[in-house]
């Protein structure tokens, strides 16, 4: 058995396994840290910046999902300072693309929408970007709406790490980044896509959905994907 390290999360001393991240330790001990791009069972990329935490002795904020624990680490998961930064990160996600909850299949089941509500966001303080984005309906069963994509890359990692097909990638840089299937080929023409639909289940917003659902009708089970990974562990 590996030696445990002692860390402090919001004052409470917790024994953690070396190699675990702050987020993993926090979640295992029922301490809530918001996150959007993190999904249990996938590699962590630190893309959404919602899990930023304060670590004593470190002047800058650190992402809980990619920071490994070490002996004596003291973490603060919630403070007015962190709340204000998380709100900014969420509001910028809303301002970047066209998130119209009123006409979205995932409204009511959307992680972005729920996080905004949890953080008491009643309006976006920044000017909207209103980019003109496409909707890929070429796949017979699924649809990809770039207007609702937050570039969390959960679909990319799910496809590469769980399904093993690696259909998805993110192309471009900064504000021009776009999710692409098979090097810019329309989803319906992607020869490596197995049509398993795991990416759809992993997507936290309505960006990926099954065809045929109306507003508020699309529910997803990302936890099933996490379970797949845990069942494969050690094989």
């Amino acid at each position, binding site marked *: 058995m590996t030696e445990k390290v002692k860390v402090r999360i919001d004052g409470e001393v917790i024994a953690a396994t070396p190699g675990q991240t702050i987020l993993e330790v926090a979640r295992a001990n029922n301490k809530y840290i918001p996150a959007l791009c993190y999904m249990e069972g996938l590699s962590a990329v630190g893309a959404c910046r919602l899990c930023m935490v304060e670590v004593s002795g470190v002047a800058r904020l650190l992402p809980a999902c990619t920071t490994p624990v070490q002996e004596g680490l003291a973490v603060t998961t919630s403070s007015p300072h962190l709340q204000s930064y998380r709100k900014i990160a969420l509001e910028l996600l809303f301002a970047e693309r066209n998130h119209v909850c009123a006409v979205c299949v995932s409204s009511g089941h959307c992680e972005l929408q729920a996080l905004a509500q949890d953080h008491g966001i009643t309006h976006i303080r920044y000017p*909207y970007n209103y980019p003109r984005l496409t909707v890929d309906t070429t796949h017979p069963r699924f649809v990809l709406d770039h207007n609702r994509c937050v570039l969390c890359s959960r679909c990319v990692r799910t496809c590469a790490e769980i399904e093993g097909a690696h259909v998805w990638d993110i192309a471009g840089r900064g504000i021009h980044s776009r999710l692409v299937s098979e090097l810019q080929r329309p989803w319906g023409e992607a020869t490596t896509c197995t049509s398993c639909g795991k990416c759809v289940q992993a997507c936290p917003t309505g960006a990926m959905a099954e065809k045929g659902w109306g507003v508020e009708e699309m529910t997803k089970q990302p936890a099933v994907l996490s379970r797949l990974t845990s069942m494969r562990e050690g094989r």
Partner: protein
Amino acid sequence: MDKRKIGTCWLDGCSGCHMSLLDMDEGIVAVLKKADIVFGPLVDAQEWPEGVDVAVIEGAVSSQDDLKLAQTARARSHVVVALGDCAVTGNVPSMRNGIPTRKLLERVYVEGATERPGVPTDGVPALLKRAEPLQAAIKVDVHVPGCPPKPDAILFVLSELLEGREPDLDSKLRFG
């Protein structure tokens, strides 16, 4: 105490928020005991009156007329409430914002018309380049998201404002 004054209007919206406002059932009686509705779709007044306590505005700012009405309401009201997702985020009306206005109108009124094609100009206000949330045009004091916001939420906001308190909407409402 003198009765307070409420003004309401809808800009680029579907009137659903006003339906929700009416849907507060007997709550509206409680509101009307404290205030008169002096301007709105159900009121005869032709012009937004001076000295309004609470302005409740539904819809995005989409046309010259919307902008003028929003500015008048702001100038003549003490508190401005953005009611519903269109006023708060731009919502559905803002989905046209990626398309140039002329192309949009031609697509609908020329390409999409089966009879008398042509972009209407008489008696309709010119569209603005974008349908924007209310706060892009005027200062907004209270944002009430929802499509539409629940009647209870509207009643809560109005009751608090009429009592002179700032409504604390923290985590009570969501977009959509």
